[in-house]
């Protein structure tokens, strides 16, 4: 009994082992009367069913929002959501925006200035001043 164990929980990384799409729900809001929703109404009529069947991981909810601009809202597994106003866009542009929401991770947009981000320990490990032959000054 000279060794006691500490309790730790394993850490998961999405895509290592299994991949879970981070967008879990997409709200689609439109208006029947307003001109800014014309493209959205065409998107719902012609392309939404195909888009939804290509992405079964996402729950789609279509609901009217009278006298308001059309909006796409993506809800993510980490609890955050992203919304995009798609007023006056045509249906292909809206499809692009829907794909953008689908592919997003839900994280805040961060500047990535390191080539590699990893939770693994470095193979080479940290430089130590007490090892090696040293440099004569």
């Amino acid at each position, binding site marked *: *009994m*000279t*060794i*006691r*164990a*500490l*309790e*730790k*929980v*394993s*850490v*998961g*990384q*999405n895509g*290592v*082992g*299994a991949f*879970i*799409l981070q967008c*879990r*729900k997409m709200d689609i809001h439109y208006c029947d009367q307003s001109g800014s929703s014309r493209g959205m109404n065409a998107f719902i009529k012609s392309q939404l069913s195909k888009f939804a069947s290509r992405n*079964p*991981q*996402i*729950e*789609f*909810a279509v609901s009217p929002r009278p006298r308001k601009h059309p909006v796409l809202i993506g809800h993510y*597994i980490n609890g955050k959501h992203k919304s995009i106003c798609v007023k006056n866009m045509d249906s292909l542009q809206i499809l692009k925006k829907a794909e953008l929401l689908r592919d997003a991770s839900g994280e805040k947009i961060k500047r990535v200035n390191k080539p590699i981000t990893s*939770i*693994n*320990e470095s193979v080479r490990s940290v430089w*130590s*001043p*007490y*090892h090696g032959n040293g440099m004569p000054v």
Partner: protein
Amino acid sequence: MKRIRYQQLSRQWLATTPARSATPSQVSRLSRPAPTALHCQRRCQSSTSITPDEVFSEAEVHDSPEESTNIHEVRSKPLLPSPHPDRALRSAKLAALHARLSLSSKIPRQVLARALVDPSADAHPKFNNANLAFVGASLLQYHTSEWLVTRYPRLPMSILFAAMKGYAGDPALHRIARAWGVEAAAAPGEEVDPGYLQFSHNNPTVKMHKWGYARAESKELNKYKWRRGMSSRIVLDDPFGNLVDEPEDIPQETDGLEVSDARNKKDLVVQNVDKNAHANFVRAVVGAIYLHCGSETAKTFIKSHVLSRQLDLSNLFNFSLPQRELTRLCARENFDPPVARLLSETGRLSRTPVYVVGIYSGYDKLGEAAGPSLDAAKSAAAINALKSWYLYSPGEVGLPSDTFAEDAAPWKPVYVDIGEIIS
């Protein structure tokens, strides 16, 4: 760890249970029988004639007229404790979850809906996930333990227990369920969307890792904090080395009594209901995959969702006597006794000295570490040497479960360690 016969366990999922007339109304549902340990409920029936479809068709029993003849005569149909299985096919949330986990179409959505119902939401064993979770728990524990034991054959038992808990314990499974995007319903009920996880904070639920034996002295162990040896933990306790509580004798309730205090006990309610329910959902999904797609698919699922997660085992060790243990190890393995040598130092007279100490056995350096004092550096070096011994891994080796397949290669024995240094 312990041998698990999950071939038998899967039968209880298909076993028949008495009709639901015992718990017809809301009031008697509140005072339903206590959730006994699952292995007590097991019925080993060789004729597994009831298919899952038939089980679900029995859901109509819910709406049978005799239910409404009770206290709630005014209401034509009493509310069910959990959503009707038929509604599973119409839930977008459930379909999305099914697709997100890339489950096979062989697994019906009703089964996934049932996996989301905790025993605290619906006590009826045919409509909650207790049986599925029991199968899943045994599979999870089996695959995790065989993977750890073949991969790290020299792990001490306490570390093995902690690693088991880190991979397949409640906290890890809770995180997995959260990462799957499972949302909990505010309160369970018939009207809830079947895609939500349903559990109740007020009702008792079933703890899933009840494998070991309840010790006769378990009350004293809890009360006086008696010591439990590691060998007895292996034999008696659950797969994570935790004490199995003694099953409480719950007094039988009389039918005439409407309000009873018998169930109102702290022990029957698990500490963290939320965590327990999420973990049970993951177990139930594994159980459902095993029952509908077979053991190979379940193994792949466990490998990709549970064993692919990262746990640094070298952070689990907490040594109390590292130098003594290293000496014992060298004596056992017929190495020369370990000697600590100062490799380099700086700032001995300053406020922040650094010493680098190496531990040598003969001419072999076993470990090395830096520390702020000679003693600290020496014990850190001994810890490094011990960790490199304990964390030996033969690399990617075959698992015993690989030989379950029909056309599997014959089993090649793996490295088995002779045991712990100081037990």
